[in-house]
């Protein structure tokens, strides 16, 4: 039986949402899956940031490094996620959260690096000139001028990457990465729509929540722009 037919079977069930099942399995099943999903997404974004920020700063400084970095991260970004999970497992990474996190980090790099470079590029050259002319060192210019001014654009990148990753992470359950994908896959296997809907709704809600929080952060980091509008 094809997956599609299976899905139709599942959705064809008379009872879409079994509230009793939700109640009974809330603490030992749904909550851990939700927490697992948050863990997968946030640890991936954190690791990706630790890589992308320095690489982005270097690319902004040494322009020649930027095209090769874009090519490599661009290729990573374009590999289908299911294939990437499979490749990692085939390459000897044990199934579980590790290959999922590696793949999610790989997907985030392109967006995060590109926004870091764009953010630094957007700093007005005369602001840098004035900073140099007043005797700030290159390090002070980076940390006190360039990064604070680039931060809203970097956070905008984090926002896009986070929403993308929360979606892709559901597929990670296929290689036992845990998270809300587990609910969805189990629901398909058991032909039990309540689990699929619970997983999908929570994953979507998490993505929207992260989007709104990061949008707020983006605004908060730009008080000077708020003041202009006021």
């Amino acid at each position, binding site marked *: 039986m094809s997956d599609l037919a299976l899905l139709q079977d599942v959705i064809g069930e008379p009872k879409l949402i079994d509230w009793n099942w939700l109640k009974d399995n809330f603490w030992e099943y749904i909550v851990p899956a939700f927490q697992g999903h948050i863990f997968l997404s946030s640890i991936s974004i954190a690791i990706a940031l630790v890589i992308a920020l320095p690489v982005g700063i270097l690319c902004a400084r040494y322009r020649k490094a930027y095209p090769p970095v874009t090519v490599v991260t661009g290729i990573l970004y374009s590999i289908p996620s299911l294939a990437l999970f499979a490749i990692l497992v085939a390459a000897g990474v044990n199934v579980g959260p590790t290959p999922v996190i590696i793949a999610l980090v790989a997907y985030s790099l392109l967006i995060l690096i590109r926004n870091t470079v764009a953010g630094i590029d957007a700093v007005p050259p005369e602001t*840098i*000139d004035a900073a140099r002319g*007043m*005797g700030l060192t290159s390090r002070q210019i980076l940390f006190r001028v360039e990064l604070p001014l680039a931060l809203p654009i970097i956070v905008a990148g984090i926002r896009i990457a986070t929403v993308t990753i929360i979606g892709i992470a559901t597929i990670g359950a296929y290689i036992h990465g845990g998270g809300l994908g587990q609910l969805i896959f189990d629901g398909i296997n058991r032909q039990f729509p309540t689990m699929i809907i619970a997983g999908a709704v929570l994953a979507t809600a998490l993505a929207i929540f992260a989007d709104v929080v990061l949008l707020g952060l983006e605004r908060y980091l*730009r008080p000077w*722009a708020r*003041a*202009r509008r006021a």
Partner: protein
Amino acid sequence: MIEFRHVSKTYAGSDRPVVNDLSFEVLDGEICVLVGPSGCGKTTSMRMVNRLIEITEGEILIDGEPNTSMSGTQLRRKIGYAIQQIGLFPHRTIADNIGTVPNLLGWEKGRIRERVNDLLDLVGLSPDEYRDRYPAELSGGQQQRVGVARALAADPPIMLMDEPFGAVDPITRERLQDEFLHIQEDIKKTIVFVTHDIDEAIKMGDKIAILKQGGVLAQYDTPQTILSRPNSEFVSSFVGGDRLLKRLSLTRVSELDLGPANGGTDGLPRISDGLTVRDALSELMGSGQSKAVVEKDGEKKLLTFQDIEALTSSGAMGGGKRSA
């Protein structure tokens, strides 16, 4: 004092210097204006003083010490820096912007706060109203005031100003120039001032260095001498055909030695003694009369075309620009 000694700058990969064997001195408390057509190396020359651009040959001495005797960043913290595009930090408040260098120098918070308030007052912006605003909330003229205040923040003896009033409309520009000259009377900084505008050079400069293409010094002298005795075809054409009128703008009516007005002054136009002689001449001609009344220390004096003519033929014109 700033001394340029045979300073040249040639960029790598080029065989033609942009600044060529430049030598002159800027005396303490004077404004030296570097002026010339674009490509004459005036901004490059200024930026070599605080080593934003490094010299290829020669040296620049500051109070007798080569400017290479300390690190570039240390040097720059001791020299005020104001540029046309201002370059305020958009993410910092006005107070933080002005406090940049004192903060780098490790001043205490209270001292920085006090200094910022004083400087805002000095440039005519109320501290209470402007301290906590962001640059984007200010007009162009206000931003340039903040730019000048920021350059003055650590009270550096030397300032570099690259068209610091260039980004505003002509009326605001004139006001900022007047205010700055007024401030300079008190603070007496040693200033290297770059402009492409000869009128601004004449107005602001105690000395003017006219540079021509290739970074060669064409003439270095007081505005009066440059206007009355340009040393070359290049300088006289750069200064312009109206240099006689420009000389008149260096003197104010109050500085003229005028005769008393006797009797019938009723139909005559009144002229303020704060005007430059150039503006007074313009008013006089516009009035259709041959003389006008100037009130000076409560006394009525008579200004005639002869007084103005006498001024242009005497060599003693415009000596007291700053004391006006």
